[in-house]
């Protein structure tokens, strides 16, 4: 199941309120549907500005009767002010979308909606988490970037608006700043918050490759081999990446090569075998990895290309250090990049 979303402002439609459109392809279970709608309801309830929610299912496995029953069951237990703003539409493909599916929507608005749906489907499928949202705020904070609105934050992090709202709730209110235009930025990040974010971020799926040659390549050599592939969607992370961002990092060498792929875990990883014939995928728990592959599934990779090498962003590298239990080096890195440094020590 893949999901994409966007804000749709059609002032001449219905109550004139903006609509959050979530496009979902391949939904198969009622549990997934309930989860999506529940997250939307929570977000709508917590939002100071009332919004509509249009859930557009493409190629789902629901019959019309089954879908109606599921939506009605949910609306029956939902407050009236929320349930009247929720719509679920099930079509085979975007071209099948008709005005009759969304009462009150004129044809000209439908054409715009159709274009937005197609655009949303063309961008990389994302299933970004709350950690990704917080990570995006952290990225903007350490790079002294301007505050952003929630919709923009959702777009940047590749998360749904409900996920964005849920993520913002996890941040200590003292660390979150909203300006007069309701734009959001971080005002700080405690050691405890760093630790929680790192712990959650290391939970993401990764893939391991071991050496079968008996003479494993060094991470540096593998990184050079990766640069020769000239791919912009794979980057060097981990210790090597962290050393690129902060050459004074207190570490002598990388235990393995961390590769970051801009895509989902279903991305074709055959390029790893091109780095060295001795590499073989082995995801068993005890396997000693020579290469670890991680995935960033947001719309913007935040990769940086310099002198032919593609580097993952410093926060992604930091997550890999944490995953390798290089706690001292993580502290080292935070002190270097975070405005105000690090409030206290991190625990493992």
């Amino acid at each position, binding site marked *: 199941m893949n999901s994409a979303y966007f804000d749709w402002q059609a002032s001449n439609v219905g109550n004139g309120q903006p609509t959050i459109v979530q496009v979902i392809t391949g939904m198969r279970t009622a549990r997934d549907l309930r989860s999506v709608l529940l997250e939307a309801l929570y977000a709508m309830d917590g939002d100071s500005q009332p919004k509509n929610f249009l859930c557009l299912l493409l190629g789902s496995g629901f019959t019309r009767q089954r879908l109606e029953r599921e939506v009605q069951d949910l609306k029956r237990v939902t407050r009236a002010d929320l349930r009247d703003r929720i719509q679920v539409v099930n079509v085979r493909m975007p071209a099948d979308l008709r005005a009759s599916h969304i009462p009150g929507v004129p044809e000209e608005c439908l054409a715009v909606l159709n274009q937005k749906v197609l655009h949303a489907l063309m961008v990389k499928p994302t299933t970004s988490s709350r950690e990704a949202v917080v990570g995006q705020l952290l990225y903007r904070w350490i790079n002294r970037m301007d505050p952003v609105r929630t919709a923009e934050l959702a777009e940047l992090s590749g998360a749904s608006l409900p996920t964005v709202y849920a993520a913002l709730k996890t941040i200590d209110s003292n660390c979150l700043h909203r300006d007069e235009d309701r734009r959001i930025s971080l005002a700080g990040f405690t050691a405890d918050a760093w630790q929680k974010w790192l712990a959650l971020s290391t939970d993401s799926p990764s893939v391991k490759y071991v050496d*079968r*040659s*008996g*003479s494993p*390549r*060094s991470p540096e*050599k593998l990184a050079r081999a990766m640069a020769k592939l000239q791919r912009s969607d794979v980057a060097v992370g981990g210790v090597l990446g962290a050393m690129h961002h902060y050459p004074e990092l207190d570490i002598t060498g990388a235990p393995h090569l961390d590769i970051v792929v801009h895509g989902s875990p279903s991305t074709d990883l055959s390029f790893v075998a091109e780095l*060295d*014939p*001795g590499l073989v995928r082995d995801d068993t728990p005890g396997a000693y990895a020579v290469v670890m592959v991680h995935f960033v599934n947001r719309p913007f990779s935040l990769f940086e290309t310099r002198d032919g090498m593609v580097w993952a962003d410093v926060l992604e590298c930091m997550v890999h250090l944490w995953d390798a239990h290089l706690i001292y080096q993580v502290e080292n890195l935070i002190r270097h990049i975070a405005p105000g440094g690090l409030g206290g020590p991190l625990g493992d």
Partner: protein
Amino acid sequence: MDEPITPRDVLRQVAEAIPEALRGDIIIVGSLAASYQLLRDRTQVIRTKDVDAMVAPYARAVLSAVGMTERLQDAGWQHQAMPGYDLPGTADTPDNRLAVVRLHRPSSTTWFLELLGAPPVVAPQANASGKTMYRLLTRGGHFALPSFAFLGLTQFQPTLSEFGLLVALPQMMALANVLHHPVIGDAVMSQHFAGRSIKRANKDLGRVVAMAYLADLHNEDALEGWKTIWCQALNEWAPTDADRLLASASNGLQALLASPKDIEQALHTVNQGLLAASPMRPEQFIIALRRLLRAIA
């Protein structure tokens, strides 16, 4: 099974037996040279009988070979008889029955010193091995000095050992072998290898892979320099054929990679020889072969 010997001990013994004035005319090639250059542990033993010494340069190879043979004969070194060859040869012995100079020390038959000659050119005619032979007229009789065209490449930048003998670079021995075997030919070695009949190409190409493996163990970037130095050597020793030879250098190795039966033979030879102390697994052999092919592509 051959007795294990230490490369440095053998080199020292050879150096002691050769007059100082002639030492510079010998380039040690073959398994002893590979062991000396590539085995990290200086006390590590190898299993070899032949110590191949190429007499160079070509212009005085015959003269130097005669001088060395007579010096060793005078010191009591003994010729090794070979079935089908006259020992010693006389003026009446036809060329094809002349024995090569194959000598062992008076006190030991652990290893033999075998003399080869530098070729006049290193690029043979198409479809020819480039093998030639010169007759040596020594006080102890007539002998053959065989010469192989591609082996002449070992004259490129040999290493001067601490014993005063020149030792061929592994890259040059590898180049000679890959050029000699652009395909896995059917020719088998004249003698069994560790109890088995082995194709000559598998033994020689297997050694190339083993040398690449050992070089890579020392330095993971070592193989990246092989193609460059091959190019330099060919431009120096076979300038008109350098591009053609370099382009064909990987053919035999590609053929080996495609043939599991030949890989098995090649692995058998290296695990019984150069890598006797730490044999490779089949998977390691294939990875080493793939790494080499990538490096020289």
